[in-house]
């Protein structure tokens, strides 16, 4: 298989990256104001959003909404890893949301990991974006997450599985915005060169187009009966 790959590469002069199959369902929970489930391969995350809702006085911000993100692991209580991910997701959401439109209110996003098979942070980001959209919160742009892994030989693997992440030398996750495909957040692990970082960003930007296209299709499908 691998050799065949090499030949095709020569013929086409193309390189290829694949994203695992992905799926999304919006508005699947009855209680939250917005909810979504996002699946990338076997990785699956469920998201629920409440807001704009009442905010605790101690957390009130006078000129914008207070954004809270909670990530619930499947086993055990949230630890440092979840806290770090929460922060990544929160900062991305804050950047995309027009939170000044709902001052003194709270927006809370809860993410439940349903299955982790690699690229978890990017799946969280995607689920978050779909849930925020479902909740009808005002956003300046959309965002999506793309994870790239660099294996020991220096090849880039997009949307890696847990095994691929384990075997890799570095793993990077980027949040990309939909307006100009710029990087909104990045989270990296392992060592890599500047060149590799640039490559990964370029690849992620390319991959984000596919994801945004998917967002559009899934929203279109959702509204297909009310048009």
């Amino acid at each position, binding site marked *: 298989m691998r050799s065949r790959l090499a030949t095709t590469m020569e013929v086409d002069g*193309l390189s290829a990256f694949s994203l695992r199959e992905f799926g999304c369902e919006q508005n699947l929970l009855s209680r939250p104001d917005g909810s979504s489930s996002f699946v990338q391969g076997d990785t699956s995350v469920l998201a629920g959003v409440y807001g704009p809702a009442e905010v605790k006085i101690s957390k009130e911000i006078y000129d914008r909404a207070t954004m809270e993100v909670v990530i619930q692991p499947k086993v055990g209580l949230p630890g440092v890893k979840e806290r770090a991910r929460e922060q990544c997701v929160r900062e991305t959401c804050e950047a995309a949301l027009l939170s000044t439109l709902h001052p003194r209110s709270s927006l809370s996003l809860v993410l439940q990991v349903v299955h982790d098979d690699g690229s978890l942070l990017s799946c969280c980001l995607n689920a978050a974006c779909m849930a925020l959209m479902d909740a009808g919160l005002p956003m300046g742009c959309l965002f999506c997450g793309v994870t790239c892994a660099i294996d020991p030989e220096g090849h880039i693997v997009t949307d890696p599985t847990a095994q691929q992440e384990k075997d890799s030398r570095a793993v990077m996750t980027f949040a990309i915005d939909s307006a100009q495909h710029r990087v909104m957040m990045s989270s990296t692990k392992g060592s890599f060169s500047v060149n590799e970082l640039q*490559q990964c960003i370029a690849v992620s930007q390319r991959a984000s187009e596919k994801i945004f296209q998917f967002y559009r299709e899934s929203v279109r499908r959702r509204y297909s009966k009310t048009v």
Partner: protein
Amino acid sequence: MRETPLSNCERQFLLKAIEEKKRLDGRQTYDYRNIKITFGTDYGCCIVDLGKTRVLAQVSCELVAPKENRPTEGILFLSLELSPMASPIFEAGRQSELLVKLNRLLERCLRNSKCIDTESLCVVSGEKVWQIRVDVHVLNHEGNLMDAASIAAIAGLCHFRRPDVGIQGDEVTVYGPEERDPVPLSIYHMPICVSFAFFLEGTYLLVDPSEREERVMDGLLVIAMNKHREICSIQSSGGIMLLKDQVLRCSKIASVKVSEITDLINRALENDRKARKEGGKFGFAELMAVQRITALKSDEVSIEMSDGDAGAPSVAITTESPPEVGRVPSPVVRAPGAGQVGESLENAWGLEQLEEEEDQPGDEVMDEGLEIKEENQRQEKSKGEVVVISDSEEEEVVILNPKTQVKESTLHASQSQPQSTGAAKKKKKQQKKKPVH
């Protein structure tokens, strides 16, 4: 966050309806809502939908030192979590009264009833035993969390497989799933909680109260029972006075419900086992029902091609070096929505089930749409002619195509409706209506 208060008119309506032996969702007094049990990719992962209430359970294990007074017994640890996703009043990490109550009930239902053989979990007496941990997450609160949680927990335990261990001398080896097949837990019996809500000082009772019904109820009786009609725990809360007869009647109802639910769990486990065997891989939970209303959409793969002109200078370098080592050929397109073959299967199943029940509307349980989702073996399909793929594989890919698949499901699922989504929906509707007229 604040919860929307219950208005007087809702309260009055609910109570009046209960007096007239009617329920808002069209159920009869002793009916459960739909129960759907789905298992995840991992062993021991289970999602239970009870109407709109949704609960996720995950069973895991680790080797720990046993308790000093019980050196040869493994440990069963239960932890129920009210995720803030489930309701605006739940806060992350807060020990609310409800949380404590539910946790205690679950412990009494599962641990104190000795439903699993803890002695078989001993590895080295006094030194190493397995601790089985059950994490239950409430994801959507629409009433009767206890029953949903107990079903999820026991189904998860039945589904779970722990790694096999070997002992040579003093050395304990834990084998990975590749080396030796993981072993199931030995389950003695399956206790399941059944909740009864009492209204107007215990004059009226309802099985499986919904969220709104819970808000107007006076008292709650929870009976945990197994299918051998053995009561594992019983708890009455809310401070209502119940007569002996009432409790006995409840236990009779509970025995019927428990045997039905146990059957359902067994069927779900059986289906999952089959799916795992046939599909080679696993049955996957949470893979969404593609046919379901507009709200969802599952899409297949998308491939990412960086052509030579991809903008960043770096791409040129990427082009030279063939990417992806662990991965297969070049423009890889994973089979469109691998879950879908399984799903068409599941859909037909659910509908059959519904039809069955329509035939016999007197049936106790309204419907239990058990759906097992399968993900069949993943297939790689090449894009265009770039990579050669054998004909047979290609054929399969064609079958997998979402559109064809939807059509198929419509064919054997419904008679009149042109759209499968509509069909599924309609069916449900009809069903709801049934008890009304």
